[in-house]
């Protein structure tokens, strides 16, 4: 299937989801859906570096929060439409991704992961001490109840949901396009064997920097609308470890070698978390992530996609 056909299908599915949500007309669906879609974007973004290249980034929260705080900063300075803030968030987090890559990509394995985690702590400390964006007290963003489009009034949460849905569509199409491109092959060689990749002519440092920039930019995009969704941002919530843990767990559960994995993982885990939040308590979230990770490491180490592929291979052989 070529990229145009695939993009059309994903866009059509997106539209169908939007139409269904609109038909349902329940605000809660938008609230919960927004969070799940936000994780679709984060997990897909994480997977570009973590899944395709094999570099486990523990700093998702930093990139996400940078997107969110870019939006807060711009909002305080001069409020702009959210799509513009998303672009700004992407640029800021993309540049930080590039910088982080340049500083840390000489490290491998656990050392790289620790460096990314440390980077998140550094950025959190900076934000806590930055009074303009609210410091440790946090910042309030008051959004209007509705947004007007050509005379139509759209409920604000529906607007945010639509934006996040659009971002998820863009992230998925980008991830799949990369997978089938020369760049995707380059990413895979880095995951498999960097020394051999260099010997084959792959400019590994450049390819890795593209991955950190792209991955960071998408995380920043997911973070930019967050202050408008939550209404009150404070460093502890924007830099929460949940983002890092979830965006690693979701691709792991779904499968890291293809765009389908993060999508399936985030829908599955995201929905389970939303369900637990309303039926049991929001504190159960991380417990669910932990239990599911343990279960998947035992049952399906290559994620759901890997499990399905294995079964299909066995079925074809028999």
């Amino acid at each position: 299937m070529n990229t145009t056909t695939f993009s059309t299908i994903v866009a059509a599915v997106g539209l169908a989801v939007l139409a269904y949500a609109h038909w349902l007309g329940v605000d809660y669906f938008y609230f919960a859906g927004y969070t799940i879609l936000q994780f679709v974007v984060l997990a897909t973004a994480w997977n570009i570096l973590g899944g395709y290249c094999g570099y486990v980034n523990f700093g998702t929260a930093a990139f996400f929060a940078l997107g969110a705080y870019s939006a807060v900063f711009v909002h305080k300075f001069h409020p702009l439409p959210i799509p513009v803030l998303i672009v700004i968030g992407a640029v800021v987090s993309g540049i930080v991704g590039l910088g982080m890559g340049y500083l840390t990509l000489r490290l491998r394995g656990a050392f790289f992961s620790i460096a990314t985690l440390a980077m998140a702590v550094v950025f959190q400390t900076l934000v806590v001490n930055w009074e303009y964006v609210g410091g440790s007290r946090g910042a309030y963003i008051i959004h209007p109840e509705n947004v007007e489009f050509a005379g139509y009034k759209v409920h604000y949460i529906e607007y945010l949901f639509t934006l996040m849905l659009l971002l998820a569509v863009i992230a998925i199409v980008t991830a799949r396009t990369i997978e089938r491109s020369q760049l995707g092959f380059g990413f895979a060689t880095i995951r498999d064997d960097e020394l051999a990749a260099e010997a084959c002519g792959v400019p590994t440092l450049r390819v890795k920097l593209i991955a950190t920039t792209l991955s960071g930019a998408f995380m920043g995009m997911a973070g930019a609308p967050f202050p408008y969704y939550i209404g009150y941002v404070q460093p502890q919530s924007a830099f929460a470890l949940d983002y890092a843990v979830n965006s690693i767990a979701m691709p792991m559960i779904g499968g890291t070698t293809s765009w389908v994995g993060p999508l399936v993982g985030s829908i599955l885990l995201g929905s389970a978390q939303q369900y637990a939040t309303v039926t049991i308590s929001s504190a159960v979230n991380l417990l669910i992530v932990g239990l599911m990770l343990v279960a998947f490491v035992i049952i399906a180490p290559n994620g759901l996609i890997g499990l399905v592929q294995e079964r299909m291979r066995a079925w074809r052989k028999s």
Partner: protein
Amino acid sequence: MSALLHVDNIGKRFGGFVALDGIDLEVQPGERLGLIGPNGSGKSTLVNCICGTLQNESGSVQFDGHKMDGLAAHQRTHRGLARSFQLPRPFHSMTLADNLRIPLLYTVRARAGLLHSAGDLDARCTELLTMVGLDKKARHKPRDLTQVEMRKLELARAMAAEPKLLIADESMAGLSHSEIEDILKLLVQLNERGITIILIEHIMSAVMSFSQRLAVLVSGKKIADGKPEDVVRDPEVVRAYIGQ
């Protein structure tokens, strides 16, 4: 005729250990050079310095009239240097055809500035796999291969980059006699196509039958360089291998 590869007085240390101590080496276009030496004599370090996996601390490497010092490994591959690894390092998650696609995409395409069609790339992968007799396994993953097939894949992948000089680092270690013959035949065939080859090997029968010239490294120094039959009789070489 000017040398294709000109290694001039290169040195490399690992902490206090001198791995390469002022090595000079010239390789002429189309030549088949054998490089031997006991374990730990610096053969692989020399290869790594020539190919850019390691950077030499002193001296210089010239290839095809260009200075290679300071260039990254992939840039040297783009300029026509290719190597196979002592322990095969295939891309495990890819099929054999995709393993060969990497140098085609990243080296041949970058060098020629050509945009091959998907069909062209597939055809070239099949051609290379046929050359090493692995065409029937094009869609298999490297884990399905035997040792000798793995070595052949390693050579095919190095060849896919269309190099001027191929450095085969112990491509025959651990293989049976007939398998060694297989690899040797392949290397000679490549040389006949005009590719200069440096063969690093411990198996003397293979080195002797393949090489037109032989260089010997011992403890990071080159102690002999010349016709194979003369070199193996050199008293210093005999001493290095057998002892006094």
